[in-house]
């Protein structure tokens, strides 16, 4: 769409209808794709979605808007006034608020304390909590949020924490709210609640920039949608004019890969099983309670659940990272007493929840990262075989399409999707018997997602068993042969993906059924 941005930037006036106007923003930015000539206009009191694959430049653009990066060229106009933000505090002062994908809350402080943190109202230099409480209450009521302000954050669910983040930003006087993948961590019911709050916000005059790659949600909530691909704006469309498929094609720039139906059969040999597996909570409820399941050869079992319902601890227990009661069997043999190393040697592989925390050494080169966990096979005697390790990394890069100049660059230069491909590749390259895949495609783009899914399917066809832990219901429904729902540490339901829907899953996941 030729939305003459050059023209409009000349006609800027103090009374501009556009709250945010980005004109011809370019940025050579450390990372894989930079911003090229991006223009964007956001009307007051609307929800404007920005969609695009990860690594397409959405985050860069938002960081520029939030003052975390400065553009190489192009202008930012807020309420018609051209501004330059040197830091986030300047952006905040101009009324821009950002809710990050990863919440930045202090667990042991209360809701109220978190909201006012850094902006505490004082009287004669003394903290005046009463005023703060009143203001926060008003804010919360105005957008229809009902929260006990005195609860510590640690007792809140994910959805409530997000509401606290939003209130925190509003408390600082934000009139323009940037939400980065706000629904990634929510179940469908929570998403509906969030959207209700957002609509109230907009009715009160707030403008929302909504970053997402979940197309259905974008279509249902937005007033305008801007699609970004490879660092440039492809188009700005109205949700009334496009459907899901059209939007996806704009994002990817080509036809979408389809969900392949499986042609192979589930095997008969049990590859991974647990019997009454319980993970003991030290001074809290047991995070995993009495979980028993079997996974057959060439089968994908999906575990659906809201984050924090024991999936993480279940994976840790299967790997041997925590003390358990009950048993774990890998390949028909009792593995309950084995060390992590021994379990991995039995043919277990693990794609971790959080690639930065549990998967990668960001400062180390790609080949060292792909070597991690495979040191034994890539050694000659007690010495690392550098050539073999680098060669193995190059193979992973080629096979899994990791976009990188070579295998020597440090892992932090890759975009999230490419980092994930490397982690997935490292685990699939050795043809494991059992794969535990936790959020294998979280935060990565549609193209990379399809590639990861395809690789998992291919390995499954070759006989690999998969335990797929995911909060992305589309992923669980599309990949699994069977679905287990985990709620509050227990398996609350076993469903057939052919008859299950996101709504049904959502009910079991929230314990309402």
């Amino acid at each position, binding site marked *: 769409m030729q939305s003459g941005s050059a023209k409009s930037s000349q006609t800027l006036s103090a009374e501009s209808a556009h709250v945010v106007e980005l004109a011809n923003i370019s940025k050579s930015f450390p990372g*894989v794709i930079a911003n090229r000539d991006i223009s964007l206009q956001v009307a007051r009191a609307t929800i404007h979605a920005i969609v695009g694959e990860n690594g397409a430049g959405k985050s860069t653009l938002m960081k520029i808007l939030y003052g975390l990066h400065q553009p190489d060229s192009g202008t930012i106009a807020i309420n018609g006034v051209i501004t330059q933000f040197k830091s986030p505090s300047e952006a905040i002062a101009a009324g821009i608020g950002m809710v990050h994908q990863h919440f930045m809350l202090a667990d042991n402080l209360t809701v109220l304390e978190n909201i006012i943190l850094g902006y505490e109202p004082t009287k004669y230099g003394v903290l005046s909590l009463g005023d703060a409480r009143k203001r926060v209450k008003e804010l919360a009521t105005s957008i229809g949020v009902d929260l006990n302000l005195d609860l510590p954050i640690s007792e809140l669910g994910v959805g409530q924490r997000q509401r606290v983040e939003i209130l925190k930003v509003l408390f600082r006087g934000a009139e323009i709210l940037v939400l980065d993948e706000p629904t990634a961590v929510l179940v469908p019911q929570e998403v509906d609640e969030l959207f209700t709050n957002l609509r109230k916000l907009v009715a009160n005059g707030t403008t929302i920039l909504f970053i997402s790659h979940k197309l259905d949600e974008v279509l249902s909530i937005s007033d305008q949608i801007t699609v970004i691909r490879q660092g440039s704006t492809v188009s700005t469309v109205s949700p009334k004019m496009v459907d899901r498929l059209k939007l996806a094609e704009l994002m990817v720039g080509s036809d979408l890969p389809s969900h392949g139906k499986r042609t192979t059969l589930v095997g008969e040999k049990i590859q991974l099983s647990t019997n009454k597996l319980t993970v003991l909570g030290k001074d809290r409820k047991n995070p995993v309670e009495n979980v028993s399941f079997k996974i057959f050869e060439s089968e994908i079992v999906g575990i659906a659940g809201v984050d924090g319902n024991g999936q993480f601890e279940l994976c840790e227990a299967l790997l041997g990272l925590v003390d358990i009661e009950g048993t774990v069997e890998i390949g028909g043999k009792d593995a309950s007493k084995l060390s992590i190393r021994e379990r*991995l040697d039995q043919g277990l592989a693990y794609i971790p929840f959080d690639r930065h925390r549990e998967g990668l050494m960001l400062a*180390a080169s790609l080949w060292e990262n792909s070597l*991690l*966990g495979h040191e034994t096979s890539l050694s000659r005697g007690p010495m690392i075989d550098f050539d073999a390790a680098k060669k193995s990394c190059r193979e992973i890069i080629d096979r899994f399409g990791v976009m990188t*100049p070579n295998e020597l660059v440090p892992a932090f230069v890759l975009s999230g999707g490419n980092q994930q491909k490397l982690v997935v590749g490292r685990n699939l390259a050795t043809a494991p018997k059992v794969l535990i895949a936790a959020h294998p495609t979280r935060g990565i783009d549609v193209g990379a997602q399809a590639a990861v899914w395809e690789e998992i399917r291919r390995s499954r066809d070759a006989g690999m068993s998969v335990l797929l832990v995911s909060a992305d219901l589309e992923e669980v429904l599309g990949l699994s042969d069977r679905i287990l729902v985990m709620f509050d540490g227990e398996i609350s339901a076993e469903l057939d993906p052919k008859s299950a829907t996101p709504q049904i899953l959502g009910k079991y996941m929230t314990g309402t059924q």
Partner: protein
Amino acid sequence: MNQQLTTQRNFDSMRKSLNTLGSSVSAIILALSICAVLLLVTGKDPFAAYSKILETGLTGEKLLEMLKRATPLIFSAIAVAIGFKMNLFNIGVEGQYLFAALIAAEMATHVSLPRPLHILFILVVAMVSGAAWASIAAFLKIARGVNEVISTIMLNYIALSFIQWLFESFFRDDSDGGLNVKTTKIAPSGRMPDLVHDRLNGMFIVALIVAFLYWIVVFRSRFGFRLRASGLNPIAARTAGIPANRMVLIALMLSGAVAGLIAMPAVIGDVYGYGPSAIATQFGFAGISVALLGRNHPLGIIGAALLFGFLDSTSAVLQLSGIPSSIVKVIQAIIVLVVVIVNEASSRRYNRRTAERAAADLKSQEVPQ
């Protein structure tokens, strides 16, 4: 294409080394300038001081002294660096080497072996003693989660008192008479031969060998990879099957073992025994500075140890020419401070450049989707 790629890679690794070297050298120059200002403020002529340092330091005699003074620093810095590579801060090198010095000196008098074996025996005892003392901190960390910074600092004090008690109660030998009490003198078969008579002994060569072994083990071996991985991301390392507790134990014991060698140039090369006033202290802390300055790399550590040895060797002469000799310690401390700051800034810049170059490379390469 392949040729081009290899050249490109050689460039990349060279660029990194140059970046490291460049930032260290500029830090040293900056530190010297700050010291010059300090000297000026106190009414001394910085050029006179620096030229005095160079003039006296660059004589043959002083250069030998530099090597001699660098020897314990190399051991100490490598001991610290082994811990650093795993994100373990072994502040207890001080206690570990003094404990090792006493035990090795005493044990040396209880065996009679032919020369090379006797020396080897003493070195092994020193390493085992150092490792044993370090293992206390490791066990505390593994079993009770005690932070090694705190436990190793505390163990330094315990070591000092423990050594004093052991020495006074059991190992002290007064037969020599005089004020400098020591353990029984080590027999000639257990003495390290000199490289240059009375100026430099063979422990300098041992230090170079240890530096080489440190490189092989930490940077090239499978064990070293696991060690570094545990330092770079302990959770990822654990998830990949690297046993965290065992790595802590081995790393701290290795660190302690190398620490055990610090006093050996004196014990078997100079003093031929242990005595509270005969064995110099504080090397354990100086090693932290040298490791920081040398960025935990063996060549960097050797270079940094030589620089510190050089500065130390000139301090006595400075005193004679009316310049306070403590200016040497001030220079060393400022160098370390500046290096830490400059390194941080330059590695940030280096990371940014790397990322930008990677992005640019990718664009020109046109990788197929």
